[in-house]
């Protein structure tokens, strides 16, 4: 009785937890396909792909992606190299220095990113001045500063990943290679590096993702080279549109795809290893019959389903035209809006009369009484729902109209004229 109750509550908790974790991503992804100009799930207007179109025409986003890739590549190289060196040093450092050294190289994980960004900026600015270089030197270049700043702490993550594998490395392997005539560099390249390869790959992926999504450090160091994250932050702060959802959807889809692909690969390696283990000499020497890619590999099947789904969606997107639906919705909204405006005019008239009456009574009362019911209005009269492209002209309007009683937008002439 209590056992099954416990099990049910565990599962209920898991469901709630993962809803909290994944729900926002799903909702955000879905809003990318709603034609509503404010990213939302309900009311659902029309299925549209226009936000993807808009995204791909946004020069700042494209430029941000380019900068992110450049900076990401630099950060991967620098932080994996430093992380590996740091891990190697950790395994052989003089024991008395070990604890101090570990604290120093682990500290950047705990130092707030803002602090890292500032210290990087301040320090290299000073170096720059000491060397007598101008404001356009390499040392004050946004790419350089960002790579340096990000690598400071990303290298710590890499170090943790690498040292975990390094601890399972048998130093005798390097010694055996040296003993057989290899130089230290050859032993490193031919023995240690192949052994570390899975961990290096993980560290590189981790470093790239950390670099790609970093905001706190980059926001101080990017200079002339805003990364995608910086551009996104600017957009989100000054006006959210579903094209951000579209970008989010692409990133979510890519992430899920690669996670599945990785899982499928791991599963396959396990299966292959199991087969090899049982293989006879002849099978190994000749052709060994490996299990087909999909046998016993659910993740691989999912990857393929995923790919097919993507192709279908892209195919639909090119053929599908939501213009009629959008026009319908727009017409309907226009009618509703007109009706509301009429109502509002009346209401305002009444209010005015009422206020005049009150002023006559009390005299000098400043604030208008808050309309008793504005719940339905917020949706419709948020200006961006009416004006499809009004974002550009009205950067402040995406802020939920909390400071202006929910009506502010409705009386903004722009919003109606755009329609």
């Amino acid at each position, binding site marked *: 009785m209590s056992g099954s109750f416990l099990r049910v509550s565990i599962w209920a908790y898991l469901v709630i937890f993962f809803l909290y974790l994944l729900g926002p991503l799903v909702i955000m992804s879905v809003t990318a396909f709603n034609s509503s100009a404010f990213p939302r799930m309900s009311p659902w207007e029309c299925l549209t792909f226009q936000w993807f179109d808009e995204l791909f025409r946004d020069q700042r986003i494209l430029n941000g992606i380019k900068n992110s890739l450049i900076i990401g590549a630099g950060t991967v190289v620098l932080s994996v190299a430093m992380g590996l060196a740091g891990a190697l040093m950790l395994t052989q450092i003089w024991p008395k220095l070990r604890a101090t050294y570990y604290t120093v190289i682990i500290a950047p994980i705990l130092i707030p990113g803002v602090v890292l960004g500032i210290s990087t900026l301040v320090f290299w600015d000073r170096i720059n001045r000491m060397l007598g270089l101008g404001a356009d030197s390499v040392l004050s270049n946004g790419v350089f500063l960002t790579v340096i700043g990000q690598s400071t702490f990303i290298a710590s993550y890499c170090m943790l990943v690498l040292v975990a594998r390094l601890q399972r490395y048998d130093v005798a392997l390097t010694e055996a290679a040296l003993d057989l005539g290899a130089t230290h560099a050859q032993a490193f390249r031919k023995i240690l590096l192949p052994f570390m390869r899975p961990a290096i790959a993980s560290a590189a992926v981790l470093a790239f993702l950390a670099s790609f999504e970093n905001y706190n450090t980059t926001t101080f160091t990017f200079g002339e080279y805003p990364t995608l994250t910086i551009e996104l932050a600017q957009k989100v702060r000054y006006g*959210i549109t579903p094209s951000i959802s579209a970008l989010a959807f692409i990133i979510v889809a890519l992430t899920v795809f690669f996670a599945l692909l990785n899982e499928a690969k791991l599963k396959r390696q396990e299966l292959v290893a199991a087969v090899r283990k049982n293989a006879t000499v002849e099978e190994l020497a000749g052709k060994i019959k490996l299990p087909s890619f999909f046998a016993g590999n659910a993740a691989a099947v999912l990857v393929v389903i995923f790919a097919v789904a993507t192709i279908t969606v892209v195919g639909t997107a090119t053929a599908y035209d939501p213009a009629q639906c959008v026009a319908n919705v727009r017409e309907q909204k226009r009618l509703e809006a007109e009706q509301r405006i009429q109502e509002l005019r009346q209401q305002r008239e009444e209010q005015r009369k009422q206020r005049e009456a009150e002023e006559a009574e009390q005299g000098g009362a400043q604030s208008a009484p808050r309309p008793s019911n504005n719940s339905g209005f917020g949706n419709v009269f948020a200006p961006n729902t009416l004006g499809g492209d009004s974002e550009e002209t009205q950067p402040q309007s995406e802020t939920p109209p909390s400071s202006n009683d929910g009506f502010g937008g409705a009386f903004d002439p722009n919003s109606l004229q755009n329609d």
Partner: protein
Amino acid sequence: MPKFLKEFFNRNGTGMGLAILGLVLFWTIGLIILPQLSMLDFSFRPNLPPPEIGGPKDVYTLENYKYLIYGPEGGSQDYNAVDLRVFFRTLIAAVCVTIFNLIICYPIAYYLGQSKGSHIRIFAIMLIIPYWINEILRAFALRIIFGETGVLNTLFVGLGIFDTPFDFIRNDIALYAGLGYAYILLMIFPIYNVIESLDHNQIEAARDLGAPWWRIHWRVVIPYAKPGISSGCTMVFMLSAGALAAPQILGGPSSLWFTQLIYQQFNDNNDWPQGAAYAIVLLVTCILFVLAVMRLFKVNMGDIGK
């Protein structure tokens, strides 16, 4: 040459040894230690235009720190109430976010750590995926949900729970949910790693002896998982206290986070030394706080990051 260095080069070869040593020194000294010292130094200097730097006016001063406490010289108030309030609010909120995260993550970490089966791997992937999505986008997703016309308000108003949309953003609920959301993985993984190594027989034995489930956790699992818990809490506290994206996107118009003040000093006021001083205050306070809590719970620094 010290014996340690000699052995190091013997073991790694001269070329490889120099490469390793060079990278490590560049990282530890060039990227970690010197920039922090440089920032510390900078925070004690006045804000001068570039030509005057190094000039006669460039002397050490406590002005930047005084500013945090007393506000601008000749200001109307005795204390810099705005900045100080933001500072303490940030710390307290970060503690709350950490506790909230610990409470929701511990059961998950325990479940993942002690269950066997292939579905655990799927759960692990589901846990990691949100972490791979951009920090800004994660905040954006919550913004969509918590917005005045967002999913939650539509739902609650639709169900008749609220009459009017609730302003989650203004009430900072969105901010706390966002901060908690952002660092879930950093809380789960350290705890999971420790609990995974806990021999399930210990729990069985405790159960065998008639201990109720909460006592098993209190007396067996939690003491064992302490390094993981402290590691997770430290990371979440430091990261939420130092968060910038979530407060910028999910914070209401008036709810400033201390990092936002630093950001303003740097980008809007162009007062780098002042910003550096604030950054130092944040860093030092957070470190002291973490060390104090770690001492209180008797945890070692070496457990962090495991």
